[in-house]
């Protein structure tokens, strides 16, 4: 069996070597985990009130997201599996762009084309991702090889879920990365469930980490609710990749506390006792206890930090909810670098009908042919 790496026990007591980090840095990890949770709460609230369409909740995954992403350097890339958006906020995705994407409005850098919860931020190397499972793994490997060939000091952290471990992209990604010794780190977030299919039903392998061995990619399992263990193991893997030591596979054992998405009802397929047991291992409660014991956080500090984030978030939501929808011209733009003739004609036909109904807005007229 693979040992599970751990620094903090579920009650916050220290059971492993605490990484050598300043008090300020230790506190920052809590700040960012709290931000993830606050963003999640607010987005779910917006969804329940019908103001946005879809949320892939991160509740319970805060340590997995923040611990791993915080171990990346500013020029490193983060390839998303699904739930890394709030970690991307820590790395530079502006909160207003995050919220604009949830509203799919005209401030959304993806121009309202993706459904909610599909974030990107080129400035902090957080590429656009599709809803398909496992396709990003080979992209990250190819981009890592490109970085190496171009002499760029970049490590590519490639995230996926336990379900994606069954995809062909997982196989190709790990295989190619192993053969090429690509400077990348695979972060497999085993959150227990792929929609309604248990993590235990995805594989007969003794563990997900063991899968790496077959590709010549060392695998390690980490308590994904222990932010210090996640951070320490990821930092080590990133340094190995940066130094030319090749890829690693990190498996973060955690738990998706809510459904797959706001459209999913997890009570239909899982045991409430299992959920309750994981609630006892909450990543933020655990880390808060550690910081209080260490004197890095004052009593009431968590509540004050959360309140500040929520206030900031509410202001952003007010602005973004009022933003205009995308121009209809974006229907045919960005399919190619230039809008080709057949798309201009298709749009112009549509624009003529819009105009005849008095529904065309400024800038939505016909393309020149």
């Amino acid at each position, binding site marked *: 069996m693979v040992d599970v790496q751990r620094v903090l026990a579920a009650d916050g007591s220290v059971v492993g070597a605490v990484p050598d980090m300043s008090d300020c840095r230790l506190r920052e990890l809590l700040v960012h985990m709290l931000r993830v949770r606050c963003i999640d709460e607010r987005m779910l609230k917006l969804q329940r009130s019908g103001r946005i369409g879809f949320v892939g909740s991160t509740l319970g995954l805060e340590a997995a997201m923040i611990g791993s992403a915080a171990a990346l350097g500013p020029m490193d890339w983060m390839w998303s599996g699904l739930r890394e958006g709030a970690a991307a906020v820590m790395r530079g995705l502006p909160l207003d762009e995050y919220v604009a994407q949830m509203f799919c409005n005209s401030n*959304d850098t993806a121009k309202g084309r993706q459904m909610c919860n599909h974030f990107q931020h080129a400035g902090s190397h957080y590429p*656009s991702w599709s809803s398909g499972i496992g396709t990003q793994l*080979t992209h*990250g490997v190819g981009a890592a090889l*490109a970085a190496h060939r171009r002499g760029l000091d970049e490590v590519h952290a490639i995230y996926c879920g336990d379900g994606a471990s069954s995809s*062909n992209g997982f196989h190709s990604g790990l295989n*190619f990365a192993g053969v090429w010794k690509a400077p990348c780190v695979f972060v497999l977030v085993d959150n227990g469930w792929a929609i309604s299919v248990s993590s235990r039903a995805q594989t007969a392998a003794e563990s997900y980490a063991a899968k790496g061995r077959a590709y010549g990619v060392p695998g390690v399992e980490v308590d994904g609710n222990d932010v210090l263990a996640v951070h320490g193991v990821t930092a080590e893997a990133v340094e190995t990749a940066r130094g030319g030591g090749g890829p690693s596979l990190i498996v973060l054992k955690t738990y998706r506390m809510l459904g797959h998405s706001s459209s999913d009802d997890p009570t239909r397929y899982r045991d409430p006792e299992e959920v309750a047991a994981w609630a006892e291992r909450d990543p933020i409660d655990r880390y808060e206890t550690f910081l209080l014991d260490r004197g890095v956080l004052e009593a009431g500090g968590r509540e004050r930090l959360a309140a500040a984030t929520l206030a900031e978030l509410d202001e952003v939501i007010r602005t973004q909810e009022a933003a205009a929808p995308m121009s209809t011209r974006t229907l045919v733009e960005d399919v*190619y*670098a230039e809008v080709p003739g*057949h798309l201009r004609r298709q749009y112009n036909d549509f624009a003529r009908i819009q105009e005849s109904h008095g529904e065309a807005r400024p800038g939505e007229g016909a393309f020149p042919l």
Partner: protein
Amino acid sequence: MATLTIVQAVNDALKSVMRDDPTVLVLGEDVGPKGGVFLATEGLTAEFGIERCFDTPLSEDGIIGTAIGMAMNGLKPVAEIQFQDFIFPAFDQIVSEAAKLRYRSGGQYTAPMVIRTPYGGGIRGGLYHSQSGEAYFCHTPGLKVVVPSTPHDAKGLLIASILDPDPVLFLEPKALYRSVKGEVPEDSYQVELSTLREVRAGDDVTVFCYGAMVPVAVKAADQAADKGIDCHLVDLRTLLPLDEEGVLEAARRTGRVVVVHEAPRFCGYGAEISALIAENVIEYMEAPIKRVTGFDTPFPNTLEHHYLPDERRVLDAIEQVHSY
């Protein structure tokens, strides 16, 4: 000017671009020291090194997926899929990722890359070394689909495809790889994408074709000329985005149209050409549009010469629309 075959012109194009642009690299199965099973990449590893022309593990999904990542991070990959029949494990990467990346990211990320692959019958390759899958890919917005039929176009279109900012599927008619020779300029040049080529001008019947069907249509047009039928022959060259104006003009010119391709007929590329003409210039049509295509069956082996449109079938269609 050198006289080259199509496969030599492909090789020449790759060398030409790789000399000019150090970010261009070639990857695929057996493309390295062996030079590819058709020798399209012969000499590239020797000239540019194993870092710029290299063999990958045997996974089409991996080849295209990693090529997309390279394209997203500053390189210009030219990926070879050994036979177009083997491209389907990479279908998701091509259709869901490469083709949609610019659109879904609002232009923040793009995948400028070329997928070269030999397609089509005529080499006794049976079901899995003979297919023409262009229709699958022409149904995919965001992709460009290019099919040369001459050495000159093979070089100029491939260079243009590699320099293009969007992903291009470059279908090489393997039946013509060595059977067609032509003059090819030694310098680098581009043949503009989305422009068709008038193979010969005529006033009686317009024949649309591409790839390996071009020489077949030329033979049929020669035989038609002996019978007093003057064919207007068009090589489409780029199937997506199509030069629609050029197609409509060529259709209007004669009012009688034959479309030839070796892929199956149902929902094939000829259906799009026929519909385009019917929607826009039906009032100029003097006869029903005829399609000459492969059968709506898997690709056969011993009977491939009957499956593939030949000059007899094309001539028959030309005569039918002419005498209508």
